[in-house]
Every structure is written in C-alpha cells, then in structure tokens.
C-alpha cells in the first residue's frame, strides 16, 4: 500500500511508473470518459457499415446507404434546376423586353449569363469581356456586326464565319496577296484609312489613298469609313481597332485581309442560356 506521502493531492497513488526516482502521479480520468471513447470506436464501426469507408484494390466499400458525394451533388443540382425552372421557363418564353423589365428575372438572367460567359466566351473575349487583339471588346460602344440585343443573340447562335448555315459571313479581299493592289497603293490606302480618324502621318499619301479607298474599300466600309454592320465591315473612322490602327498593322490587314471566326453556339448551349448570354453581354456597357 502506498503511504500518505505517496498520494497525490486528489488522494490517488502513483501509476507505478518510475524513471530515475521520478514517479508519475495517477490522476485517474472518470470512467465515463473512457466509455465515451469506446462509444466513438463503436460509432466508427457503425460508420464503416453505413457509409463508404475502406479502399479496396480497384474500388472502395460502398456502405449500406450507398452514399456518394457525387450523387449528392447531382441531386442538389437537379433540385436547384427545379427551383430555378420557374425563371428558366420565363426566360425561354419571354422576349428580351419582358425579361429586362422584370428586375428579378433580369438579375437571374445576368447571373446565369455571367456564368455562361465565363465558361464559353472568356477564353477569347477575356474574363471581363475586354477582348484582345482580334477578339472584340464587348464593353465598348463599337460593334462590327450588331450591338442590339437581338443582334448579339444572333451572333451567339450562329457565330461568325462558322460552319453554321446561317452564320454571319463576309470576306474582305486580301488586296496584296491577290495582287489587286501593289505595295505603294496599299501604303497610301493605309494612310488614308488612318486619316479617317485624324491619325495620318503623311497627308500626301493619304490624298493618294483616297481614290483607291473609294474604288476598293468604300463599297463595304462606306464612303466616309463609317462601316456597315450588315456586312460586318468595321467602322474605320473611330478610335477603336480590332487588330490595330497603326500603319504596319493596317498594311498587313489590307495585304492579307482579316477573317476572325467565332463558333456557333446554337448546338452547344440551350436557347435559354444563349438568351441569358445576350442579355449579359448587352448589359456590359456597349449594348445598343
């Protein structure tokens, strides 16, 4: 029996462990604490039976409930789709004016449009729709084909120079490559095009270019360079350039032509998503 000196203040002795004369007090835990630990062990066994738990060679134990996070996500997505079906149906049925007039519907469309934009459009047009060289900025006020909401929808549905039969299609001749204009003529034309926005470097060359422009370019880009959306001919008199408004780039454009391509999304996305996209893109600041 341990004598009084060998008892801890709580009245228990030592555990019997001793290292170089240093002994360990035994301050015992309550039994129920131990039972709680056993209960957690039993719980774990129950858990193995009910839920997926152990890896096997090629799979894992599925558990009695057959619970799967992936199935759960699918269920949640289905439930969320069902919940938003009210809105989706309205977007499917309503025209753009009705949708834009209903703040709740509009915010649903904008949120859906933003998500779809990130998934489908951002790789070319940029996360913020700011565009890159050759890929139009969708926030500014210049549109090559159409800036109206219906026009944007049309563009998304059928694409530009895509393999869709209804695609927006136009082709600028490669004036240099095809030998229609020689290098001096191209250079003069480029000067004239620059002068349309007041940026010419050589007024004489620009004056020479005016004549070439009138015969070769004005048919599509307009006599004053204002462009023609019906033909997808960009406005050459404003400050915005898809490929660049400097002389070198313009010479390259006239020599080799440009033919940016956008895929048709009518096969890839459902009509409601395309509508949402059109509303979203239209809302970015440039919509007409």
């Amino acid at each position, binding site marked *: 029996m341990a004598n009084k000196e060998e008892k801890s203040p709580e009245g228990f002795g030592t555990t019997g462990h001793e290292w170089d004369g240093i002994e360990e007090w035994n301050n015992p835990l309550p*039994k129920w604490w131990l039972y709680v630990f056993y209960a957690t062990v039993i719980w774990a066994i129950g858990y193995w039976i009910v839920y997926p738990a152990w890896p096997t060679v090629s799979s894992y134990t599925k558990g009695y409930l057959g619970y799967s996070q992936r199935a759960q996500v699918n269920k949640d997505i289905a439930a969320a789709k069902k919940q938003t079906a009210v809105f989706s149906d309205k977007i499917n049925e309503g025209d753009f004016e009705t949708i834009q007039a209903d703040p709740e519907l509009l915010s649903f469309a904008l949120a859906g449009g933003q998500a779809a934009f990130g998934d489908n459009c951002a790789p070319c047009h940029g996360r913020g729709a700011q565009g890159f060289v050759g890929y139009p900025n969708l926030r500014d006020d210049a549109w090559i084909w159409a800036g109206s909401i219906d026009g944007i929808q049309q563009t998304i549905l059928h694409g530009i120079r895509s393999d869709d039969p209804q695609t927006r299609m136009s082709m600028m001749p490669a004036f240099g490559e095809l030998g229609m204009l020689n290098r001096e003529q191209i250079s003069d034309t480029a000067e004239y095009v620059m002068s349309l926005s007041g940026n010419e470097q050589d007024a004489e060359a620009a004056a020479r270019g005016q004549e070439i422009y009138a015969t070769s370019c004005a048919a599509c880009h307009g006599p004053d360079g204002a462009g023609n959306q019906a033909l997808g001919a960009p406005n050459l008199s404003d*400050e915005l350039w898809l490929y660049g408004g400097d002389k070198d780039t313009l010479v390259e454009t006239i020599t080799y032509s440009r033919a940016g391509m956008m895929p048709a999304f009518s096969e890839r996305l459902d009509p409601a998503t395309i509508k949402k996209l059109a509303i979203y893109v239209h809302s970015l600041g440039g919509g007409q």
Partner: protein
Amino acid sequence: MANIELGGGASPSDEETQLYADRVKVYPKEAHGRFRTIKWIVMAVTLGIYYLLPWVRWDRGPYLPDQAVLLDLPARRFYFFFLEIWPQEFYYVTGLLVLASLVLFLVTAVAGRVWCGYTCPQTVWTDLMVAVERFWQGDRNARLRLDKHPWAFETIWKKSATHLTWLAIAVATGGAWVFYFADAPTLAKQLLTFSAPAAAYFFIGLFTVSTYVLGGIAREQVCIYMCPWPRIQGAMFDSDSLLISYRDWRGEPRGAHKAGQSWEGRGDCIDCNQCVAVCPTGIDIRDGAQLECIQCALCIDACDAIMDKVGRPRGLIAYDTVRNLEAGAPNAEPLRLLRPRVLLYAGLIVLVGIIMIVALMMRPVLEVNVIHDRNPLYVKLSDGGVRNGYEVKILNKQYVPRAFKLGVTGLPDATVQLVGHDSGVVPVPPDQLKGVKLHVALDKEGVRALPDQATQFQFVVTDIATGETMEHNATFQGPPKSGAK
C-alpha cells in the same frame, strides 16, 4: 531501488492501481442562509431573462421586426433593443465580448469564481435540476436511501418523475433558444402546429439533450473535467482575492463536540461534515482551495447554521483572502481592493466601454461604398474617350425608404450613366443595402486633360428628401499616359 520500467505497465506491487475512476455520485443537501437566498434570486433572474426575453417587444416602425432581442440570420441583422447591428458592424459584438471577459477577469480578481458559483448556466441549470430532484425524491438522506433500493417501486416512480421534469425543463430550454432567432409568437404558433422550420426542431432537440445531460446527469463533471475556466482561474487570483476559504487557524484541531464541553484548546470545527454534504461538487472545503470548488458559498451557509447552533461566531468558512488566512486572524490585513490587476481590469473596462459608446453614438445611418470594375479597369470608346465602370453600394440604415441622387465631383465634364435607373434616382428600401452599376465616361479631350493615368474623384450621394450628402473617393483609370496614341 532502481525500479526502471520504460514502456510503462503497473508494477506488480501496485496491481490495484486504477487508471479510470468511477464517478462518486454527489447528493447535495439543501442549504439555507444568505448565500442560498442570493443564489435563488440569481437563478430566478437569469432563467427569467433567458426564457422571457424573446417575448419582449420593441417598436421599430412598420418595416422591421418588433422583437427586442432578435438574431435574424436570414436577413443578417442583430436587433438588441435600440441597437441594430449589420454584419459589417460585428465589432460591436466583439466589443461586448471583450467587455464581458474583462468584467469576468475583474470579478475573479476581486472575489474569485463568482461567475462559476452564481451565474454560469451550468451552475444555474444544475441547481434547478437538483431542486427538482429534491422536490420529488427528498433531501440528501432520502436520496441516498432510494439509491440503496434501485428497484423499489418508490425509487422507480420518484426517479421517473424527476427525469420527466428534467426533460420538460430541457425542452423548455431548447424551446426558448430558438425564439431568439425568429419572431417568437409566430414561431411558437408554428411549433405547436408542426409547421416550423426543421432547424427549429433540430435545435430544440439539441438543447433538450444538452440541458438534460449536462444539467441533470453530468452536473459537476462538466466543471471538473470539461470546463477550461477552473484551470485559468489560478492565474487570476492573488493573495488579496476574496475566496471561499475554511479558516483553519480557527477550526483546527477539529473534532466532535458535546454540548457544554469547553472550547479551550480545540478548534471551532466540530467535524459535522455539513460543508461536505451541501457541496454540489462533493469536495471538502477544509482541504483548502481546489480546482473542483466552484465557490458557490453554500458551505458558508451550512457552516454558519452549525456555528449558530453550537454558539460559536459565524464565519468559520467565509470569503477571505490568502493573506488573512496566513496571518491567522480575520481582517488581520486591510482588504486591498485597489491592486494593480484590479485597476488594470477596471481601467480597460472603462476604456472599452467609452470606445463602444463613442462608436455607437457616431454610428452613421448612411454608408456608401464604391467598387471599381477591375476587369477591365477602363474601356476605350469609339470617340477616343474612356469609360470606367463602378458599383456603388448605398446602405440605408434608417427605418424609412430613402431616395438618392448620384453625382461626381473632381472629374470635369464626366458623363455619369446609372445602369437600370433612367431617372437618375436610386431608391433604397428601409434598412437595406442597394448596389447600382454606374458608368463614368470622359471624352477624348477629357482624357487628354487628365494629369495622370489614375485620377481621384468623388462620388456624391445626395438624399433627395433631406439633402444630406455623402462623398466617397474613387479612382478614374485611363490608358497609360506615356506612349499613348
């Protein structure tokens, strides 16, 4: 003597060593006296507040809930009488918590575990559960007798009645909890018609179980084994803290005392064990200060009653300081209340209190935030101008709808276009946040006139009705100045 045993295992001589202890059930006897009365009052007040507070109404006008204390989680508002806290003002709650812990520290430094002994929910509910137990099963001795005959009819029905009452109290506790999170009368109706949200039933169930288990069954085990506070206490007392103490200099040597016997040469403690019998954690205060003691003062009541009976002065067990105990006389040393730690805690309480009052008084009822579109930072326009996009968020913290006009200063000739508000007026519902998209554009000349690529300007938000204005800084971003075409 070199009994080296690495790797453990009890030595053969110690085969009775137990690493786990059975719970020794505590049968607290009822105490009567000053402190018991105080504890009854504290229990009535704290439980009264807890159960009734959600039913107190507070008129906030037509647009807001009229519940005095409401944690409206879906709407993200916390209502507390005249206060209404938005999520971004949660620092008020932080301040409140800081204040509460400082008060706790102060009280502990002055008078020990007052929190544990009187107001801790664990103590209050345990006290209530013990009172219920006493009501059905009788006092300590009766309960001890019942437990000797666990299968007697009397034991079974009395225990069943006790547990049923505990469960009823537990349900009421869980039930009161959920009323803090929803309109109490509405939720009560829903609960009774079984149409309340599932979360309400879940939390009632959770708090029913925890109240029943912690208050009814676990009791002192929570204080001794689960709660960290007893471990922290040690650092908060000093030798001038008033702690519940057995004055051993007066009580020892203890021993039984017969009526008429002389008190010469012996202590006042007659070893009647009443202090142990009333103790809710089942300890002997005469062993000195210990972790298990929640300082509920019931042993003072028990001992004082005995001292009255045997004709000795009260206060054999009393609130006393270590300094006095060591001096061996009551009030041997003057009570030193103004100690550095007491002053520090009190000073901090005043400081935090003042900061909070000032912050509350300066709380604005209108806030404006501006978020500049980052992607892209600016958009070039066909006329050579530049447009920036912003989202302006207006917080109307008043309980009435307000309408605002938005303008800019510091950006000459800028055009401002509010998206979706053609009239240029933004209505903000009462007590709501409204975000509006806004385009600010400069033409080619305007952009050229800007001194830098980034220019500071101000949004001016004007309340149309009152004319109150608020400015918020923002930046207008243009193309790089060097190398611009």
